[in-house]
């Protein structure tokens, strides 16, 4: 019961915050709305008993990515110019609604094989065992480290003053 209430509150707030990203006139407020959406997604992870991912969501998205986005908004001085749309409003709306309809139909028409076991909690130790074991995901972890390094170097090179 408590879980259901938590889910509905998080879901409504997440959708409203996502709509705020689209429809708020002020770009800075849109960024703050995005931060609210990130926080509610972290809450949804907690309702799915993914505690480690919720912490990572708060640290990475709310802590780092939102700061980067707000920094970019500040440095580009686009706050006064508002949040205009281009001429593709109606086609994009049709595409989004049709895609949403297809996805909702697929999700509800499919009969998922729900497992009987309750999910693992806490997830930190099993996740670490998955990520860093020989038989797990150690190679993708190394590749992800290389990707992050390349992205940092690329960002520095691109954004540097000539």
């Amino acid at each position, binding site marked *: 019961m408590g879980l259901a209430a938590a889910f509905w509150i998080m879901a409504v707030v997440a*959708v409203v915050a996502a709509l705020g990203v689209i429809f708020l006139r002020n770009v800075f407020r849109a960024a703050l709305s995005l931060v609210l959406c990130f926080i509610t*997604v972290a809450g949804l*992870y907690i309702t799915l008993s993914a505690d480690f991912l919720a912490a990572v969501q708060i640290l990475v998205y709310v802590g780092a990515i939102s700061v*980067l986005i707000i920094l970019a908004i500040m440095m580009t001085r686009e706050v006064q110019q508002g949040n205009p749309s281009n001429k593709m409003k109606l086609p994009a709306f049709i*595409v989004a609604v049709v895609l949403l309809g297809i996805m909702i139909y697929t999700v509800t028409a499919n009969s998922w094989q729900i497992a009987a076991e309750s999910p693992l909690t806490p997830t930190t130790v099993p996740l670490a065992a998955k990520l860093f074991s020989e038989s797990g995901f150690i190679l993708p972890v190394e590749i992800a480290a290389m990707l992050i390094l390349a*992205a940092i170097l*690329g960002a520095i090179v691109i*954004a540097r003053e000539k």
Partner: protein
Amino acid sequence: MTIGLEHYLVLSAVLFCIGLYGALTKRNAVIILMCIELMLNSVNISLVAFSSYIVPLLLTGQVFAIFVMVVAAAEVAVGLAIILAIYRGLTDIDANNINLMKW
């Protein structure tokens, strides 16, 4: 009414379509990047939901969500660097006016 897998998947689809609409229609490049982050987040929700409802003991969906977060962090760093570089050259980040490489 108990919360099932479908609720999370429908919520994820709604968030994804909101992000898609924004990424297709917005002219401010930073807003487009924010909408892409929204879409990545919605995909993460469905990955974690699948992980905890279908294979609750394997955690593979959560591992995938972690890699999506890694790629999202790399993407936002490079994307914002590109936006700042474009702004320095054009003093504008309106996606309609960025047409230097348009054929």
